[in-house]
């Protein structure tokens, strides 16, 4: 519970050149019109002075309060301890909030009570030392706090329900796909018997469509996790060279099948970044996979270089290809969801349309940026710039 140390003493209050009566006069409008109720109490706990806000807050006229023990403003159940606390304060009077960590309440004339925050301060006058209590009604703030807690709990419940939904969805979609991909596979493996060429062609369409659906499900669930902040990240030292080598290894066959050269440049064993290995791997894999997919002849290269971005050390992973390239006006649309640039090419280049969108989201998660440049007809280059430290 935060405590508000209020406006402090009105100007001149701590100058012992004044008397209590002088304080009570309108020479100090700040005291009289302060937004907090201010109550001056003497060393016996008797109220000597109150301001206008005290009258409003507690429902008394000031004449009814002056001369009364201050406990008149304290709910019955805490009066006894209030007397003891008052004695404690008198032994060590300084400016401080009262009852830190306690839920304090004030008692109105009509018997109702309300939550308050109180700041205490000793006040020196020519007549002696008094204690000034600045009392703030926090009813509204407490109500907000309660509402906020309720809203938070509600959000947490909704977020857990969403997680549960995503997990079930992933499981439920994969289960029938297992049968589709599995039995299409057994047929294509000709386990039940030989296939006619047209049967094989059609089964291959079933197979690639099912694989496409699986990739979509994986990407959508990944995105949903990122967007709900549920993507688990583990920041640890990651050798960039290892990630690049793993991606090159995984996609080597795909490049070779298209007779493309897959090269790595500038890979060393020293460049280490504090990052999430899985996210980084997924981004680089996606970029290289795209590069191979959209290149019919030539090469794909993965280049690693150390850079400084501002005053931070970073590493840049560039994926360049000699493929079909991207029109200048299309570059800005590249990282949006479901934007495969040339509608006529979607058949030829099977993809979910979520890959680059996912890459950019993942990059943001690990504090990295992705940029694309391209010359139509002669290739594209994607660069991921990643800070070495978190």
């Amino acid at each position, binding site marked *: 519970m935060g405590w508000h140390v209020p406006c402090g003493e009105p100007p001149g209050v701590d100058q012992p050149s004044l008397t209590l009566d002088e304080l009570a006069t309108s020479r100090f409008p700040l005291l009289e019109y302060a937004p907090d109720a201010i109550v001056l109490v003497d060393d016996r706990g008797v109220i000597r002075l109150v301001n206008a806000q005290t009258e409003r807050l507690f429902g008394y006229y000031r004449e009814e309060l002056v001369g009364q023990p201050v406990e008149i403003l304290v709910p019955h159940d805490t009066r006894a301890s209030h007397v003891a606390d008052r004695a404690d304060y008198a032994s060590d009077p300084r400016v401080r909030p009262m009852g830190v960590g306690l839920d304090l309440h004030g008692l109105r004339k009509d018997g109702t009570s309300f939550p308050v925050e109180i700041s205490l301060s000793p006040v020196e006058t020519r007549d002696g030392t008094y204690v000034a209590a600045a009392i703030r009604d926090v009813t509204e703030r407490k109500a907000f706090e309660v509402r906020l807690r309720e809203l938070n709990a509600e959000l947490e419940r909704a977020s857990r329900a969403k997680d549960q939904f*995503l*997990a079930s969805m*992933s*499981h*439920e979609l*994969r*289960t029938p*796909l*297992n*049968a*589709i*991909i*599995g*039995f*299409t*596979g*057994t047929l294509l*493996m000709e*386990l039940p018997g030989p296939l006619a060429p047209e049967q094989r062609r059609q089964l291959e369409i079933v197979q690639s469509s*099912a694989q496409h659906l*699986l990739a979509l499900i994986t990407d959508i*669930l990944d995105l949903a996790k990122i967007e709900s902040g549920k993507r*688990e990240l583990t920041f640890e030292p990651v050798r960039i060279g290892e990630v690049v080598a793993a991606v090159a290894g995984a996609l080597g066959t795909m490049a070779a099948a298209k007779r493309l050269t897959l090269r790595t440049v500038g890979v060393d064993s020293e460049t280490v970044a504090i990052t999430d290995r*899985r996210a980084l791997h997924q981004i680089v894999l996606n970029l290289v996979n795209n590069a191979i997919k959209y290149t019919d002849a030539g090469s794909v290269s993965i280049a690693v270089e150390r850079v400084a971005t501002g005053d931070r050390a970073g590493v840049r992973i560039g994926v360049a290809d000699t493929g079909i390239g991207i029109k200048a006006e299309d570059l800005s649309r590249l990282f949006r969801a479901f934007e495969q640039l040339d509608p006529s090419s979607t058949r030829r280049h099977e993809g979910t349309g979520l890959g680059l969108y996912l890459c950019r989201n993942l990059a943001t998660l690990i504090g990295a940026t992705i940029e694309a440049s391209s010359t139509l007809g002669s290739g594209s280059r994607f660069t991921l710039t990643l800070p070495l430290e978190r």
Partner: protein
Amino acid sequence: MRVLVVDDNSTNLDLMLYLLRAFGHDATGCADGATGLETALRGDFDAVLVDILMPTMDGYEFARRFRAAPALRALPLIAVTALAMPSDRERIASAGFDGYIAKPLEPRTFVAQIEGFARPAGP
């Protein structure tokens, strides 16, 4: 190899049994965890495959009981499940299985994967 497969989804059970048999293995299927445990205890298997999300007894409970039975303690136990989120993988990895295969399974490599889990590379 004699392989026991436990899965409550009959189509997926069918697929796994078909693949294992097609590659020359002796495969037996069970549709629930309790029957699977009984069968495992009575039979003489070289490996057991089990689904995770099953009614009455799930794959985790199956693994606990499986590992608690002296006769089964050393038998390779492999989870084959459509639970494929990273948190699922972690939980499965620490639940006493010797291997994990995510569904949809890859029909061309499935049997080789099972053989690899069942007979870890020797010295």
